[in-house]
């Protein structure tokens, strides 16, 4: 019995300690091995980036940079979107200085720039004529500018489009118009849906950057939005109910079977493997579907993002490279960022990896490279077209107090979006009602909106 008691005490002690450590320091999960400053020795740049194809190509090409810049080593930490956001935000906000270069979205740039967390890149880029900063696409440059300062450089920019397998549509006798409505897409998806092939693949993984990226654009084109112009949350409105109900019906009728597991990369695989006929998602996906190793290369058709009440409903997003002020090797970091977003880098990707893998939506000049125009003829024109016709100042039916399309650029939004995504996921999985999910989401959104009321 004595031995038992001691064991018990030991056990509970261990539980307590373990949980405390989890509670206060799981931030250190990826810690260790901070960048070492180089006095004439090797400079190691630590880059945090997202696990999308274009970023992985950058990792592959880092040897070219290292060869051209002796004494510089570049270490990549590739993470999933949600993990990247969490790790980088925690690192940059606390000034821990673990990363020299971070990949951030258009959502973060203005907020972090305002907080003084990012190095202002304007002087370094403008002074270099060969970099040609004005060649960066204006809309994407705008979302990364705060107070006239460019705090991050777009690595690639994207909108969202509808992608569909032409062979499947032809066989079913369906023509997808250039500017389809959601109802047309839902009908087409239902027609081509079979047990072996989903009619459409849509993101369902709970997370504001996963499920809520397309869902927010659906809500906006159905006439709803997160907030009205006075920061009053408008989630419990009929427009939201209609939009979310439509999304669920679309998934139930003809979507992939396990939505909670599906986001960008899962849908991409499904499309490539012929397990889904349509997909409305980031336009950058088109370049992956048309890549040399893709089984559906040349079989895809592309259209504008489906709409309901608005004229366009594509989003505007860019993944950007930025340098936290906490870095100890600013100059080396700036040099790498310039290399990775330069015209020459675009050509390097084209020559070494393939012209359809070129990061799109960052530079105007990309769209006039003959090899790229040829390789990307299926989707380059539509990408440029959509990206220039969306309106980040008012994407929905009513005016909104922030600039941005599939997100609300307030710091609380990732938390709000995340919690709401879980509530909606419960509804998608038939564990709760739509009214319950939306009313809970409304109060979460309102609490965040109250902080921004003027």
């Amino acid at each position, binding site marked *: *019995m004595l031995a*038992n008691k001691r*064991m*018990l005490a030991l*056990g*509970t002690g*261990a*539980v*307590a*300690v*373990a*949980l*405390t*450590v*989890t*509670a*206060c*320091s*799981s*931030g250190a999960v990826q810690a260790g091995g901070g960048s070492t400053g180089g006095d004439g020795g090797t400079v190691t740049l630590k880059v945090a980036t997202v696990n999308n194809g274009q970023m992985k190509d950058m990792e592959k090409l880092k040897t070219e940079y290292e060869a051209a810049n002796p004494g510089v080593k570049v270490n990549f930490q590739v993470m999933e979107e*949600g993990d990247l956001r*969490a*790790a980088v*935000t*925690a690192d940059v*906000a*606390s000034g821990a200085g673990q990363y020299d270069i971070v990949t951030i979205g258009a959502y973060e740039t203005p907020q972090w720039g305002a*907080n003084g967390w990012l190095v202002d890149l304007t002087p370094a880029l403008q002074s270099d004529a060969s970099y040609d900063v004005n060649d960066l696409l204006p809309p994407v440059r705008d979302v990364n500018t705060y107070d006239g300062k460019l705090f991050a450089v777009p690595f690639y920019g994207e909108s969202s489009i509808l992608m569909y397998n032409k062979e499947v549509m032809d066989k079913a006798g369906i023509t997808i118009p250039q500017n389809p409505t959601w109802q047309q897409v839902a009908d087409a998806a239902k027609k081509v849906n079979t047990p072996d092939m989903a009619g459409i693949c849509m993101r*369902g*993984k*709970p*997370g504001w950057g996963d499920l809520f990226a397309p869902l927010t654009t659906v809500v906006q084109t159905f006439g709803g939005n997160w907030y009205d112009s006075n920061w009053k949350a408008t989630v419990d409105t009929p427009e939201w109910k209609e939009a979310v109900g439509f999304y669920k019906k679309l998934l139930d009728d003809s979507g*992939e*079977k*396990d*939505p*909670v*597991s599906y986001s960008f990369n899962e849908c991409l*695989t*499904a499309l490539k*493997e012929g*397990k889904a006929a349509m997909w409305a998602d980031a336009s950058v996906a088109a370049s992956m579907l048309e890549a040399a190793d893709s089984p559906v290369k040349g079989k895809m058709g592309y259209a504008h993002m489906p709409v309901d009440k608005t004229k366009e409903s594509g989003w505007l997003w860019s993944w950007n490279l930025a340098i936290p002020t906490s870095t100890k090797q600013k100059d080396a970091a700036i040099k790498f960022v310039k290399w990775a977003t330069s015209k020459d880098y675009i050509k390097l990707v084209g020559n070494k990896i393939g012209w359809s893998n070129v990061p799109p939506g960052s530079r105007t000049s990309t769209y006039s490279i003959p090899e790229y125009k040829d390789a990307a003829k299926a989707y380059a024109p539509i990408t440029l077209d959509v990206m220039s016709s969306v309106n980040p100042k008012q994407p929905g039916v009513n005016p909104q107090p922030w600039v941005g399309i599939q997100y609300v650029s307030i*710091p*609380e939004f*990732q*938390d709000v979006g*995340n919690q709401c995504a*879980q509530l909606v*996921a*419960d509804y*998608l*999985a038939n*564990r709760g009602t739509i009214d319950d999910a939306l009313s809970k989401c409304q109060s979460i959104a309102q609490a965040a909106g109250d902080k921004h009321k003027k």
Partner: protein
Amino acid sequence: MTTITTPPTELEDVRATTATDKRRVQKKELWRNRGLLLPAVVFLILLTQIPFLTTIGFSLTKWNLLYPNDRAFAGFDNYTSALTSGDLWPSIRATVLITAFSVTLAVLFGLLFAVLLDRQFRGRALARTLMITPFLIMPAAASLIWKYSMFDTNIGMINWVLRSLHLPVVAWSTEHPMATVVIVLTWQFTPFMMLILLAGLQGQDKGILEAAQVDGAGAWRTFTWITLPHLRMYVEIGVLLGSVIILQVFDPIAILTKGTGGTKTLAYLLYERAFIGLDVGQAAAYGVVTVILTIIVATIALKSVFKVFMAGGSR
């Protein structure tokens, strides 16, 4: 070993040492022993108590990383919001259920495999190594393997089998999030339980088993009346260690279910508050509440569990 004899010449010295002297010597020795332990104690305090105190400090602070300049003493605000937000109780439920199911299933499967591996057969060492592998795989990697190779509706093996049998495809993460997490954890922790129980089986006195055989007990009787009581202690250790580890489970939830459908364990809730909400103060408050609750629940629950075991036999 040499026999110590007191030479007669030292008899006076012995008589001279009084009781106080003896106590002084003992005290001195005691302090020396304590001194030797000191580095370990300091290390222990540094590693365990200081983070805990820091956490308590954080929990009393209004500190959201999104607003770095707005940092102040908050009193018990964070605790109030943690207890009233309605996130805590479902999370405790999820943690308890996931731990209970996973540990129970892992013990049952572990026992089964331990009994099988306790026999002599060719390639036993190889089989044992293969059986242990799941426990050696990183939890995140294990979850990814399950997500894509097993559970996936298009390319997963489970659904491939179901499809071949003309059964409906199961959307694991969406429809059965709890089962999904429990299956992965059971798969991972079965080898752990198996190892502990196998050690128990191999430490069993063969003579007793023979005696049972001579007395005419069949295989089943021998197992239930002799082997199982003998294994009781090993099961206790397995359950205790397994629970401690699984209570903090994070990876399968982050990778497979994202905390939906009643799988948001305390560890995942803390992660969300700290790294998605970026609210350090509130996350710390959740951490402290969790620790207190865990100590209370663990003490009561484990004690009663062990009482049940104690009633089974004498020790």
